[in-house]
């Protein structure tokens, strides 16, 4: 039987609580992993290893955070994504809600789209395709 969204959320929450030493209550679906939960870039590596173990999946780094798009000069102009870059990002990150980011697509703001909900959605899709 496939795991329900609530079960996935609970496991993601437990992972983030362990990895970032935050309280259960802080890990809400709309919390941003870096802004609200205080994760640093190096924590992502830890979180990815823990999620792989918890869910028995492989998470290639490029799938969660498509760096190649952010470094592609065809897509990034003055530290902002252009229309083509935004389209590529949407395709590469179907798990993230880019509504707010789109309004001012500065790459420095991309951290804001990494919410707990986005991770849950990412895992859900991964498990479904397993």
């Amino acid at each position: 039987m496939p795991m329900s969204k609530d079960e996935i959320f609970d496991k993601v929450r437990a992972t983030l609580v362990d990895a970032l030493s935050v309280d259960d209550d802080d890990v809400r679906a709309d919390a941003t992993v870096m802004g609200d939960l205080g994760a640093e870039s190096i924590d992502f590596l830890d979180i990815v290893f823990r999620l792989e173990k918890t869910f028995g999946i492989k998470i290639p780094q490029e799938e969660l955070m498509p760096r190649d798009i952010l470094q592609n000069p065809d897509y990034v102009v003055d530290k902002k994504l252009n229309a083509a870059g935004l389209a590529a990002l949407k395709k590469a990150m179907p798990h993230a809600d880019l509504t707010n980011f789109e309004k001012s697509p500065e790459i420095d703001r991309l951290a804001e789209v990494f919410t707990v909900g986005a991770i849950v959605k990412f895992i859900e899709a991964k498990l479904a395709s397993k």
Partner: protein
Amino acid sequence: MRWIWFDRFVEFESGKRAVAVKNVTLAEDHLHDHFPGYPIMPHSLMIEGMAQTAGILVGEARGFSEKVILAKVKRAEFFTLVRPGDTIRYQATVDGEVTASGASTTGRIFVGEEPVGEVDLVFSHIDKNMSGLEFPEENFVFTGEFQALLKTYRQQGGAKVAL
């Protein structure tokens, strides 16, 4: 290159598990400061010993081609003190496998049969994870000096040395 906090690998299973030993001796300067009249092995240096044991385990898995750095101490817990004359055993296990980005490891520390501590770590292959930043071409983690030491150990250690 003198900053090596274990003496020898006694078990080594590539990409999976390694056990290293360290003999603690009163000839080591730091024990006279930690603490004067009460020499005990600092727990911080045992974290370093585990980081080196596990870090070499992670590095060897890719032929020492990656710059493996300690990214995070996930957990470090100690239960007892280690004194001069003790032999520390660092047991490091890779969680799952070494991936393109790095590895997570579980570590157990013993003196004889007695558990001393538990140190779980995360290692990063920095060239893969800090894209955008420039690092020197040469491998400053596994240096030529390190490789030379390893070669000597391998040639002369015979059956005693597992790596």
